[in-house]
């Protein structure tokens, strides 16, 4: 054995500079901010290399907005122009909440490949792996919002709350979506495949977004359904967003979004990290 090592040493010094293989340097582990930024950078690079994933946040919002405005407008509100005033805030909420599972899906894929194990053996503050990615998701949400609002304005959407109202509404959506994403990170660790994760998220998001006040006024619904619609987090968010965009929002409406968002983070962020550490 020792003879082989001696022999290989001489050939290796020609092929590999040994100095690069062994540094002897050991930097201090990164702080939470530095590791979060490194993970955010990774998520940005993934968008750069897999640009198809941006389809959901660019093309879908356009299709959704056109489809629902012209399909339901005449039937529900009498005219598409009227309906757009009501629909746009809600459908913006629906579209953005439907793309909150990105980081959960990426995490699910990381687990099935080996990189999840590497991250877990690094001397870092572990939540930064998810927070970094979720921060980049916020960029996705912003992009989807910008596209949808831009198209809405072109189609005749006139927010009475002005630019400040619209801006505030988007901030509320970003806060909610960041918090809501933690459900999918927890589910992403538990689910065995991307497919089953997609199915579960669909089963949750589809009823949540449709059985809400996004498309119709809850007053038209049977009373037992109204009960659910009124406590549905999507309704709570849509109400606040509508209020902000149309300039008649209340602090109470916004306050409820903060409460619901805090609830998601308080429950699902620690649960995610617990599952993250314990995953076998």
């Amino acid at each position, binding site marked *: 054995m020792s003879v082989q090592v001696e022999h290989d040493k001489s050939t290796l010094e020609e092929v*590999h500079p040994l100095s690069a293989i*062994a540094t002897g340097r050991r930097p201090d582990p*990164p702080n939470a901010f530095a590791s979060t930024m490194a993970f955010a*950078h*990774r998520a940005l690079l993934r968008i750069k*290399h897999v640009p198809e994933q941006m389809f959901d946040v660019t093309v879908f919002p356009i299709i959704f907005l056109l489809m629902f405005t012209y399909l339901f407008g005449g039937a529900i509100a009498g005219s598409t122009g009227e309906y757009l005033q009501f629909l746009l805030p809600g459908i913006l909420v629906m579209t953005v909440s439907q793309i909150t599972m990105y980081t959960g899906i990426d995490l699910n894929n990381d687990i099935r*490949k080996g990189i999840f*194990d590497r991250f877990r053996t*690094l001397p870092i503050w572990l939540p930064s792996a998810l927070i970094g990615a979720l921060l980049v998701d916020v960029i996705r949400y912003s992009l989807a919002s910008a596209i949808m609002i831009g198209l809405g304005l072109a189609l005749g959407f006139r927010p009475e709350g002005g630019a400040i109202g619209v801006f505030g509404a988007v901030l509320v959506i970003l806060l909610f979506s960041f918090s809501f994403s933690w459900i999918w990170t927890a589910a992403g660790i538990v689910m065995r495949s991307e497919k089953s994760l997609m199915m579960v998220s669909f089963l949750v998001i589809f009823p949540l977004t449709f059985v809400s006040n996004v498309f119709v006024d809850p007053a038209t619904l049977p009373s037992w359904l109204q009960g659910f619609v009124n406590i549905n987090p999507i309704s709570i968010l849509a109400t606040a967003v509508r209020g902000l965009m149309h300039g008649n929002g209340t602090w109470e409406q916004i306050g409820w979004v903060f409460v619901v968002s805090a609830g998601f983070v308080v429950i699902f962020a620690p649960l995610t990290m617990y599952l993250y550490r314990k995953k076998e």
Partner: protein
Amino acid sequence: MDNEKLNRQSNGVAVEATGLVKVYGKERAVDGVDLVIPKGTVYGFLGPNGAGKTTTIRMLATLIQPDSGTASIFGHDLKTESATIKSRISLTGQYASIDEDLTGTENLILISRLMGYTTKQAKQRASELLLAFGLQDAAKRQVKKYSGGMRRRIDIAASIVVTPDLLFLDEPTTGLDPRSRNQVWDIIRALVHNGTTVLLTTQNLEEADQLADRIAVINRGKIIAEGTSSELKASVGSGTLNVQLLDASDTKRATAILERKLGTSVHIATDGLSLSMQAQDSSLVAEALGELAREKIAISDFSLGRPSLDEVFLTLTGQSADEQANVEEGGTHERAGRT
């Protein structure tokens, strides 16, 4: 005794484990593993799929918690000091532990930043490593477009961004062509030369033979044999003798001679010319071949294969009491497992 133990932990021992157990449902994936791995050595876990190699490594790398048993890495307790341990170890998993959508450079910069380098230092470290691993031409290519050997190298490069004191390599050369395999072996030797302790798993006896100072043979969660490569081989015999006859009319006589000399049964291939058998002792093989020559039996070819993992297993798991005594005389330290 206690003093001596402490001394050993802080000076010479990288890994010490006692009675490690991991149970999944009814299956005892790891069933009472004891280990002592000296610093600066290569330790090989040899065993088939599902033997418990990976589970053991994942426990030692702080990824999963043992159901019972204790372990320490460089004297730090696995359960209570995992943060300290993480800063001194590194793991290269069985599957590429890197982001395949990113380029080689981007992966190494990511890991470097996560190890605490500034972005500028990380860039420098990444290009240094790419050069050292012969990957500079592929630096800007996505890892998913790499060949198997390149993937393995970038994976190991990511593991040594900061030179670890202990490196876990889970089947580092499985599925690689011989040239790539040799490159990985060279990298491992260079790391050990610089003082890193390596714990690797393999299904390949030759790999364990080439690299490992000591080898533990694992089967069904237990270490069934442990020793240096020559100790293990002595316990298994030389391997398989293959003899190719020129004339099928000699088959019967040749078979008789070989069976008498070697004491094992001969397998005759359907062509009637290719004979193979287990050979425990290479000097007996020489005698048997000499006897064939004296009897004027012409052979076109013969070979004495190394013992394959299958043979190691057959010998170690299906052995009789007599053979076990022989094994112990041969110097291999047998572990009976948990009783």
